[in-house]
């Protein structure tokens, strides 16, 4: 599905990702974990086209067999053509637009294609009306799925924090992604909200979309992920099922700071 190989990202003298290779399989929830500064968000930004990697390839294969070399694609094409959606660590909603409008903006490319270069729809002719009805239907589906229907006409900036997180996921899902990348979706959520989030993410996975997830909340990671990749200082130090990761000495060392190789040698 998603194959990252030899990914290297250098910022001046800092090596944020160092020859990283991992795979995210179709229909899996793949979690990327690691201590602060391990390079998780850098990997994310490379996958979603916000950074261009210094070296390495990121290849996405769709279920229908088409192949997208993400490291060479333009930023917006990664979402539009390769169907990779993402959310942000610090929520980025269109705060002054309503919840519904946020979901419609996400369907921009589909809706825009139905407007006849924007000219026909201005005069109210063409197939835009039908496309808009379909867009509203999809928006309504994700509003129901995230429990935001009652607030559909409120500005996104006025929603409580947890609802904003859910709306960002709903908005990302409106581009019909094959891979959804979530950057710390559970940050700042209370236990009840993070349970709801788990259910939502499992539902998205069962709907056929693969997930790539950065998360600090180990409760969330261990319960829902099928596969975990552990990073530290830009290198991969662990890769496997949650059970295997939990007992991996290298991972435990990275998290607890014990048994550091340098100290051992000293």
């Amino acid at each position, binding site marked *: 599905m998603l194959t990252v190989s030899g990914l290297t990202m250098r910022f001046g003298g800092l090596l944020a990702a160092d020859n990283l290779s991992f795979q995210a399989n179709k229909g899996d929830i793949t979690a990327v974990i690691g201590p602060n500064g391990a390079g998780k968000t850098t990997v994310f930004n490379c996958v979603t086209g916000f950074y261009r990697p210094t070296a390495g390839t990121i290849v996405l294969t769709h279920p229908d067999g088409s192949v997208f070399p993400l490291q060479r694609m333009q*930023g917006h094409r990664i979402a539009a053509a390769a169907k990779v959606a993402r959310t942000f660590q610090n929520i980025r909603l269109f705060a*002054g637009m309503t919840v*519904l409008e946020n979901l419609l903006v996400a369907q921009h*490319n589909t809706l825009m294609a139905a407007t006849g270069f924007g000219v026909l729809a*201005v005069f109210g002719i063409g197939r835009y009306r039908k496309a808009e009805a379909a867009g509203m239907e999809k928006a309504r589906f994700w509003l129901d799925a995230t429990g935001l229907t009652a607030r559909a*006409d409120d500005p996104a900036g006025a929603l409580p924090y947890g609802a904003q997180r859910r709306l960002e996921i709903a908005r990302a899902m409106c581009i019909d992604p094959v891979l959804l990348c979530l950057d710390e979706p559970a940050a700042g959520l209370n236990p009840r909200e993070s349970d709801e989030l788990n259910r939502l993410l499992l539902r998205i996975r069962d709907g056929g979309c693969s997930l790539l997830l950065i998360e600090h909340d180990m409760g969330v990671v261990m319960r829902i992920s099928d596969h975990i990749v552990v990073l530290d200082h830009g290198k991969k130090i662990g890769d496997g099922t949650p059970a295997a990761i939990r007992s991996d000495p290298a991972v435990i060392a990275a998290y607890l700071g014990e048994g550091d190789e340098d100290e051992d040698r000293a």
Partner: protein
Amino acid sequence: MTALRDAFVSALVALGLFGPLVGLVAASGEHGLSLHVRPVATAVVVGLVFLGRLLIVSWRGRNRRPIAKTNRARTERLSRTGQYIAPVLLIAAVALPFTGSRYYIDLGTLVLTYIMLGWGLNIVVGLAGLLDLGYVAFYAVGAYSYALLATTFGLGFWTCLPLAGILAALWGVMLGFPVLRLRGDYLAIVTLAFGEIIRIVLINWVSLTNGPNGIGGIPRPTLFGLAFSMDGGPGTFGGFFHIEPAVIQRIDFLYYVILGLALLTNWVSLRLRRLPLGRAWEALREDEVACRSLGINVRNTKLTAFGIGALFGGFAGAFFATRQAFISPESFTFIESATVLAIVVLGGLGSQLGVALAAIVMVGGLEALRDGLSFLGDQMNSPIFAGIASELPLYRMLIFGLALVVMMVLRPRGLVSGRTPGVALTKPKAIGPDLVAEGRG
């Protein structure tokens, strides 16, 4: 007590400022320059500052309410009253020529030109959040396109109007390309420079534009081929309808042409706002990074905003050329861009009604102020006002500037701030200005 002390400090500052500015006058007499002192005038100014500050501070102290709540309520109230204001304004605009006063119709034409420019710029600044200080460039391109096409190839107004619009839109896109990566202040500087470049090219490219002498003899528009000429022949408006030809007919016609063009601008921008393109512009203003993550082509979306904004600027320019029958680069200075931008900001970014109201206040209000002041001056026959009465109209810019400052202090987001979403599941609710982004380029 704090209010009194505050007012006293303000008065001291005013004394320091106005002491030399107002209190001392250099007059050229028989023996060269001499210095006069004006203690009374200084005292009046300082006293005004004292009283004004006192009033402001005591008024503020009494009106402390949570800002977000009042903003929301205000937006709701405004959008509700707005539903009534807009039709009233429209009826007044349609009925204006029936007053028969040439002065009012000319003023109305001017106001409508600025309303149209304001609505055009509103697409770029208000919706897409791209600060454009060189909007007058597209106005100039439209005006010169029509003037040159008409005088060189003998094409009529209605043929040239779309051409002028398209040419202006092309220039809009051409300006858009280099500024795609710029934001905020940097964008403003480049657009400002672009406006100046166009004007300076117009001045210096004498072989094409006739330089600073301008282009004259630009043909007037026709009504389905009927000219508004005074000979009353069979091919003219008067001859066809068998009425006495009069200048006022042409003035009325021009008025309705600009009214139609302005309403077209309004209609298109209201339509676009409910379509994906308009929503994408607003999303771009709110968060460009999020737009990119959703697969929106940020470059093309920005370019369409520049292009469509410029299109309407070009239409307005073509109208300006046909109305004046003479254009020169002097008509397209930076002050025009600044006026249009002031109209958009004063009206409230993104608000159609606000821009219309602001244009009426900025252009019509200034005229009304001049009339009012000269009337007041005529009434002041007493010798006390000897020096002031005749100069009173000259103070209009000062008063107007002060009014704008007060306005922006009281309503920093413009007359009609906030926005009403174009689409809703149940009922659209107005959104307060505190949540809506202003755009940083």
